[in-house]
């Protein structure tokens, strides 16, 4: 088989020397490992272009992207500009939702110094731990990711020995911090969220099953194994719902797409993911779930960035 492929490929090579695509002819000789290595090399190349978490930018920068593009989008950006002060981009590597959530949440705690919120989410994280245990996960497969996230909550609260500034939070989120886990920080926290999301979906599989069937043909278990737990798998409303519910954190998603508007004016749709209060374990300890989202994400088909309300 391989020999035949090689012969065909050689002929193609001769006939199309100048076309770069002819390099594809060597595919038959590539082992999976080579392909993976090339993939990660491409990713590393891309990585240099956009940091995991960018700087705050005015929305005019967003408009500049669409200058010669769809007028509907430009109109919508004008509407956004009235309500939102800034955008912070994240890298489109499939983890953008989780990374946006990570930065946005930790930044909110850093700015608000809301200890009550930290205590509340810690309770939820503890529930998530129990969920994973009850689903048969061995502790050591997830405990490191859990403890890293819990540590970060302490770090963004000021007055501790290991309190951090916003600059350090940005450095960490860009995997540029010179701490123990420096270059892996974001990956580890994203993985924490992926564990939490997967646990929540499987715990309430009856609730999530119809949504998952709408997305893929997979069972709940398969969906979590193939589309939630692996790094770089993109997030959908199922992931957002599950993470929001599990951690008890409301999330607003603003949609910037080409969907046409009602006659008489342009409007921008948004959807609030509000944690369900149906889960009794969340109500334990008398903590109430905050209703107004303090995390706002901008969704453009296939990608999430962070938005800052005025």
């Amino acid at each position, binding site marked *: 088989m391989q020999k035949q492929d090689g012969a065909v490929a050689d002929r193609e090579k001769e006939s199309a020397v100048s076309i770069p695509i002819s390099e594809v002819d060597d595919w038959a000789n590539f082992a999976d490992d080579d392909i993976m290595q090339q993939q990660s090399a491409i990713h590393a190349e891309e990585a240099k272009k956009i940091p995991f978490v960018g700087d705050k930018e005015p929305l005019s920068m967003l408009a500049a992207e669409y200058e010669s593009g769809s007028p509907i989008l430009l109109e919508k950006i004008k509407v956004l500009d009235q309500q939102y002060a800034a955008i912070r981009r994240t890298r489109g590597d499939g983890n953008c939702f989780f990374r946006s959530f990570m930065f946005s949440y930790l930044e909110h705690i850093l700015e608000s110094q809301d200890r009550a919120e930290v205590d509340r989410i810690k309770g939820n994280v503890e529930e998530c731990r129990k969920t994973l245990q009850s689903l048969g*996960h*061995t502790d*050591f497969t997830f405990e*490191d990711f859990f403890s890293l996230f819990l540590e970060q909550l302490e770090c963004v609260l000021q007055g501790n020995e290991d309190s951090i500034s916003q600059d350090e939070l940005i450095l960490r989120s860009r995997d540029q911090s010179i701490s*123990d886990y420096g270059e892996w920080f974001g990956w580890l926290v994203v993985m924490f969220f992926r564990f939490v999301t997967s646990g929540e979906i499987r715990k309430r599989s009856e609730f999530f099953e119809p949504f998952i069937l709408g997305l893929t043909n997979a069972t709940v278990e398969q969906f979590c*194994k193939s589309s939630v737990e*692996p790094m770089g798998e993109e997030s959908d409303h199922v992931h957002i719902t599950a993470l929001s519910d599990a951690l008890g954190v409301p999330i607003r998603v603003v949609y910037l797409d080409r969907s046409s508007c009602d006659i008489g004016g342009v409007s921008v749709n948004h959807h609030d993911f509000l944690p369900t209060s149906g889960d009794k374990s969340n109500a334990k300890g008398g903590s109430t779930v905050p209703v107004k989202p303090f995390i706002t994400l901008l969704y453009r088909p296939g990608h999430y960035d962070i938005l800052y309300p005025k």
Partner: protein
Amino acid sequence: MKASRARLFKEYKEVQREKTADPDIQLVCDDSNIFKWTALIKGPSETPYEGGVFQLAFAVPEQYPLQPPQVRFLTKIFHPNVHFKTGEICLDILKNAWSPAWTLQSVCRAIIALMAHPEPDSPLNCDSGNLLRSGDMRGFQSMARMYTRLAAMPKKG
């Protein structure tokens, strides 16, 4: 990375504790290098690999468990998703579907499952894949069984 070493050490302890839990898998860490492991797995019953014992080699990267271990068959095996010469395994969880939720032990279980349920549509061993795809179960099974006898069973006499 310190974290990978710590994680592997936890897996090592777990393997020692659960030695009898899974009689089909015998996972052993290299005496001098915790990033090198080998495993002996039993061919699943009611497959052409039944009765065979297959050796796997694990090379664990420093970024483990964020990145998957590299695993290959040291024992020759005739299977659509295993490279006949190198022993390389085509299994999604060892590539892009990897997640730290997997352990070396559960990877072994996934490989045993792959032995029982080949995926002929993504073959690394085309001859084997073609036999299955063309529906020649008898041909596939006799080839696979022959190699199991030749390579994965203790020599008699």
